[in-house]
């Protein structure tokens, strides 16, 4: 059996989740605590990938990042093209799972009583310290929940990844795409094995993260 799709999917989902974690915490915090014009619009925009068909999302990404776009040309010049590479798969699955991360983070930050932060300030701690010692730990559970959801979503992404990264065995063929490929080739037996492994892997990673969360909370 070819293990490549497993390894690739794990790598892609991990990287995508890492990107989402950084961006999601920052944006979630801004949406929860910030008072700026266009906040609602920004919140709506970050949720859109959740309701669009993944192929539509993939189309947008292809147009925005493809060889003919300014961004695509710049990436080409830097020697890191995205389209039809594993990096494209990372970007596609990251964008597809981003709403879950942002929404979880926003809700987590909104759940932190601002009065706790205010008291922390009167006790002489800087904004950064207050964020690190009060806001972040108290929002931790919600952020972790968002991370789990986003990771699972990124791991299972099909449509957007297929549009942006294509289906190149040994290079961009993730597990979800490999399942489709195998079924198309009529090899239902192998598809069943892939599906079973993917399912087991998903459940195990969710369990692991839950346990980690419990340890953090204790």
């Amino acid at each position, binding site marked *: 059996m070819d293990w490549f799709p497993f390894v690739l999917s794990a790598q892609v989902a991990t990287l995508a989740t890492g990107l989402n974690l950084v961006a999601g915490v920052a944006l979630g915090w801004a949406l929860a605590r910030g008072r700026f014009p266009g906040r609602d619009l920004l919140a709506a925009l970050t949720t859109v990938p959740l309701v669009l068909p993944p192929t539509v999302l993939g189309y947008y990404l292809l147009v925005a990042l493809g060889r003919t776009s300014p961004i695509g040309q710049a990436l080409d010049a830097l020697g890191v093209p995205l389209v039809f590479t594993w990096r494209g798969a990372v970007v596609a699955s990251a964008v597809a799972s981003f709403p879950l991360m942002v929404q979880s983070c926003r809700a987590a930050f909104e759940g932190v009583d601002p*009065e706790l932060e*205010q*008291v*922390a300030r*009167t006790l*002489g701690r800087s904004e950064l310290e207050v964020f690190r010692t009060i806001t972040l730990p108290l929002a931790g559970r919600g952020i972790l929940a968002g991370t789990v959801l986003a990771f699972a979503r990124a791991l299972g992404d099909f449509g957007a990844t297929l549009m942006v990264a294509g289906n190149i065995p040994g290079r961009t063929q993730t597990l979800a795409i490999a399942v489709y490929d195998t079924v198309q080739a009529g090899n239902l037996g192998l598809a069943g094995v892939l599906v079973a492994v993917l399912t087991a892997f998903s459940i195990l990673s969710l369990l692991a993260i839950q346990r980690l969360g419990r340890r953090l909370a204790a």
Partner: protein
Amino acid sequence: MLEVEVRHVWAGFRLELSLNISREILVLFGRSGAGKTLTLRAVAGLFRPEAGHIVLGGRVLFDSKAGVNLPPQARRVGYVPQGYALFPHLSVFDNVAYGLRGKPEEVRRQVFELLDLVGLRELADRRPQQLSGGQQQRVALARALAVRPEVLLLDEPLSALDVPTRLELQGLIRDLQRQFGIPTLFVTHNLAEAMFLADRLAVVDRGRLLQVGPPKEVLNRPAQLEAAHLMGVRNIFHGRVSLVSEGGLRVRVGERDLLARPAATPAGLRPGDPVWVCVRAERIALVLPERLHRAADANLVLGEITREADYGLASVLYFRLTGPRLSPNRDYDLEVEVPAYVHERLRLDRVRTWTLAVDPEAVHLIPQAGAV
């Protein structure tokens, strides 16, 4: 020590008050929504008023004209909000240590010193959720004191506590304030608590300071009608001065004349001036017939109990006067508060008609500003 002058206006509410606090407990007393909490938050730097200035121990914390507005971090205030705002993910020890800096062993020493002050050394490892309300309040106090603040801001710190815990903590707060000599702003809407804790009492209503002074003085001599209401004066009548003499003032109330000899006569009252006549319900005495001669100096009126309200420790009796009335438009004229044991001793459940003595010194007059 602390000088506060704040002005702020927004939809339907106007906050405009100035206060000076030395090494004392100044109680901010008033209804919810009077602007008490907002004033504390302005001092803590958590709310920025439109105009004014706040000076603490010579340091300018806020000055709208000079454009100074120090962040809360730089103000050195000990702020305890309503509900304490303890950090739920930190132990008691870490809550108290939160504002402390320095070597770990030095921080440890200071934290335990503070925990000893509030009597919580044994609970250092607990989480806030594992503590009773009173213990949580003690942690909040220790945490606020840890940063050696120059002013202590306590926002209704005891209002959620049961009575015994409340009394215990009132004592603790007063002891700590005396020990540290720290200027303290204490917000409450509980009159007994205000009276116990206040070195000076500031009555606040709808964003304005009505009166500030020693608690007994504010209690017995409210300067404005609204202050009288807030301080729990139950008998307030519209009256008119009819005579001013050496021995006191004669005031026309309803169909009667009352003699008033207030401890501090409002200056410049002349016959014909309209006044609010205030008599505290606790200061009206029921006179036994054989003791009538001893009360000859007082305003004596005859009345009958029409109804009463039993508050357990005390009762309020609603007296309707025989003959000329004080409030002809109501079914009663005077509210009289008597302790439960007096109610029992005098058999008030059966003996309903009494002579009441209103000491002229207990009749307080508030000039009616603007009215003619």
